[in-house]
């Protein structure tokens, strides 16, 4: 049974001021209702004034997604009553969106490239936020700091075929937005998703307001199972809106009838139609993920996988380029595999890592001053220091202090000899042709030398000793 997924993504544009007034959008850590004016409070008589930057950002996204920008787009009012909506209508774009018909390339479940079509993008304002005081309070509070925050809604065609594809699409989209500098992924609620999902031949279900990438995959996976089970039991899937309960990983039905709306859209009389199609040509796009990935492979000779990983986040890609001078292939392995793994484990951001220190570490590795294993140890010490907010020592200092410099052959001959002497059974196994025995012995020596020796070199020495019987 084919799964069909389409997404509507609300992206918070990283403008300094709100969509229709001059209030600051950065209300993090500030008291409720401190970033408000007559416009975003919807006071009688206040009029919206369109933020140019938001339009520019929207056009940037449109261009990056290869979209068509019509000659004229228009703002409309979406009328509905809700306590967080100060004007009782939301200014959005309806039948004349900012841009239409775009594409995003992703990997499908078989690892092939595939195209997800973008239906439209349009600008709209966020409403306020209701705060329900804990306990059985008789009232709710409204915070209008978010009222008027600019959102770009991106709507896809139902082109995704699995929850995993949906997640890959979102990751890809987020990367593009970050490259464009129009989006701050670290802000709470900066990307919110409504997902439409159906199994081929049955009704479509909309899961509303999912606020994380993982959440989208989880919600969709839950829906696939739920809908399949319904059909297996001979029941039908009802067309409805469902909420995703992040904590429990399930979706629940929103009461169908009360959610039905007639939004009574009509053109916003307080704003003129937008004529911006001819501005698109002037927009300079930065190098986008696909182009950067291809350049990384060509310029640095690194693998597709490494290039993909490194360009998945513009900050990571910049970091790589800052340290690639030492040896691009070595740098790619260390940044994409080792460093990224360590960062994920620590939940640390690449921004916290000093590139120059990592370049020094790569120098030590390239000159074979230390082994890979010792390198990991040094890296961990450096990251621990960064995470603790301490100054990051030069890796050479750490190597010196910890005595991690690569040992030379002569230094560990006695250790090899001791290990051979202590493991007669392994020596016997080696002699009878069991190759694993050599690895065991090398491992024992590695343990004794605390990773200061190169395993390949050690292997050569150990087998030499065994073969010549030079015990």
């Amino acid at each position, binding site marked *: 049974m084919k799964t069909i997924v389409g997404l509507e993504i609300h992206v918070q544009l990283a403008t300094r001021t709100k969509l229709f007034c001059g209030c600051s959008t950065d209300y993090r850590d500030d008291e409720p209702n401190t970033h408000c004016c*007559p416009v975003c409070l*919807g*006071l*009688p*008589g*206040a*009029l*919206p*004034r*369109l933020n140019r930057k938001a339009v520019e950002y929207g056009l940037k996204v449109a261009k990056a997604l290869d979209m068509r920008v019509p000659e004229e787009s228009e703002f409309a*009012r979406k*009328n509905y*009553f809700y*306590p967080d909506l*100060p*004007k*009782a*209508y939301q200014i959005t774009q309806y039948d004349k969106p900012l841009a239409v018909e775009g594409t995003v390339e992703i990997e499908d479940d078989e690892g092939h490239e595939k195209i997800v079509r973008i239906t439209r993008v349009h600008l709209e304002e966020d409403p306020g936020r209701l705060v329900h005081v804990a306990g059985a309070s008789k009232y709710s509070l409204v915070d209008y700091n978010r009222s008027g925050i600019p959102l770009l809604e991106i709507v896809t065609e139902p082109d995704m075929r699995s929850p995993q594809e949906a997640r890959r699409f979102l990751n890809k989209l987020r990367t593009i937005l970050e490259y464009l500098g129009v989006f701050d992924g670290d802000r709470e609620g900066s990307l919110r998703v409504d997902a439409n999902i159906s199994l081929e031949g049955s009704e479509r279900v909309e899961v509303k307001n999912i606020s994380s990438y993982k959440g989208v995959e989880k919600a969709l996976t839950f829906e696939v199972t739920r809908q399949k089970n319904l059909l297996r039991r001979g029941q039908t899937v009802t067309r409805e809106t469902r909420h995703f309960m992040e904590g429990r990983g399930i979706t629940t039905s929103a009461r169908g009838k009360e959610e039905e709306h*007639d939004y*009574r*859209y*009509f053109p916003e*009389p*307080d*704003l*003129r139609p937008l004529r911006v199609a001819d501005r698109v040509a002037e927009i300079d796009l930065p190098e986008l993920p696909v182009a950067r990935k291809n350049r990384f492979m060509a310029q640095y000779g690194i693998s597709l996988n490494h290039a993909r990983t490194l360009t998945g986040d513009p900050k990571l890609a910049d970091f790589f380029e800052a340290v690639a001078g030492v040896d691009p292939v070595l740098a790619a392995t260390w940044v994409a595999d080792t460093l990224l793994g360590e960062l994920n484990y620590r939940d640390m951001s690449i921004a916290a890592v000093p590139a120059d220190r990592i370049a020094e570490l790569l120098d030590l590795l390239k000159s074979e001053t230390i082994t890979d294993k010792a390198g990991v140890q040094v890296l961990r010490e450096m990251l621990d220091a960064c995470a603790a907010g301490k100054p990051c020592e030069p890796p050479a200092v750490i190597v010196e202090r910890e005595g991690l410099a690569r040992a030379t052959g002569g230094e560990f001959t006695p250790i090899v000899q001791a290990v051979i002497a202590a493991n007669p059974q392994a020596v016997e196994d080696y002699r009878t042709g069991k190759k694993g025995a050599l690895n065991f012995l090398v491992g024992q020596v590695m343990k004794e030398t605390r990773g200061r020796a190169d395993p390949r070199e050690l292997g050569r020495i150990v087998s030499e000793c065994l073969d010549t019987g030079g015990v």
Partner: protein
Amino acid sequence: MAGTLQFSPDDRYNAFITTCREAPFGDGALAGTAVAVKDNISTAGIRTTCASRILESYVPPYDAHVVGLLREKGAAIVGKTNMDEFGMGTTTETSAFGPTRNPADPSRVPGGSSGGSAAAVAAGLVPMALGTDTGGSIRCPAAFCGIVGLKPTYGRVSRYGLVAYANSLEQIGPMARTVEDVSRLMSVIARYDPHDSTMLDRPYDHQPSAEIKGLRVGIPEEYFGEGVDPRVAGTVRDAIGVLEELGAETVPVSIPGMRHALAAYYVICTSEASSNLARFDGVRYGPAVDTRKSWHEAYQDLRLELFGTEVRRRIMLGTFALSAGYAGRYYAKAQVARRNIKEDFERAFCDADVIAGPTMPTVAFRLGEKTDPLSMYLSDILTVPANLAGIPAISVPCGRVDGLPVGLQLMGRQFEDERVVDAAFAYEQEVRA
């Protein structure tokens, strides 16, 4: 010289909702001049009720752009004038604060919806006042009360701070006893405001001139046809004769789209009103009530209780006109009709520099005379076209019928407010002399 103006008028016509007994003023072109402001224009620190119970105690934290300009030029804001609730009416009888009476005959209405401003000026309580005109709301009371009122070109005066009723139609405009004062007030309020995106930077800075030799005055047959009191039509024709004596020439023009004007107007203004007034939910505005019900039931109850009949009628009409399945039949068609009228005017202005006709088809009604909303709506027929087309229109007193004032209406091309002011000024100077 800056100072404070004492203002305790004998408000026997109920022209004011709020008066400011001690009105501060500054220096400038209007230093110390008492100006009354219609109560749908926001004034920081002075309540702005729109003549509605739902805004009875609303005190805006900010000044409308025009109010800021008035203060800058030294005017003393002496009070907020009565009006039809949210501007919805032709008689000022729908005010939650009781009707205003016409100083020309207290048994009659002053016209609406800027009836309070017109009465305050006509009664001599203030020399000038601001009104707002959505479908004739400045010109109608000006005509009924025998004063001058100008609806400026749409986009020439900032609407920032005007509590919206029908955004795409309404403009703030000056009202006074003479054309010269109307022009003076217009010079103060018509200044660019970036907060209003529908505005163009076309400041008004004009001294009226009575020289109208060669002015081509278009006479639309529709303005003298069915429904227009023949005596009113005759009075207005006489006034046009005065313009001819002054050297103007008359040309016949036609606005065929007129027959759909009222229908289009009422669909558009009620549609916009249904959206604009939705924010008045009785929670953020209106008396605090603990209804102990769900929020949407609370909204419903409070809106029923706090909005007057006419307001609820128009909200219902607009909600219906915009709703799914009907928007194409009503709202979209109204927009087409509106475009047609605009084009009619453009054609007419190829042959004429200004268009002249009566402001209102009759003289002022008696209080309580119009009980049927439809017949009330019909009396807007001559004023509404200018709002649909966004063009400037002025009403200037041009005689009396049954002892009641009649208004001559002069309409001009977009942004030719100066020209209609001059034509009105020429007429006024001639008949006063």
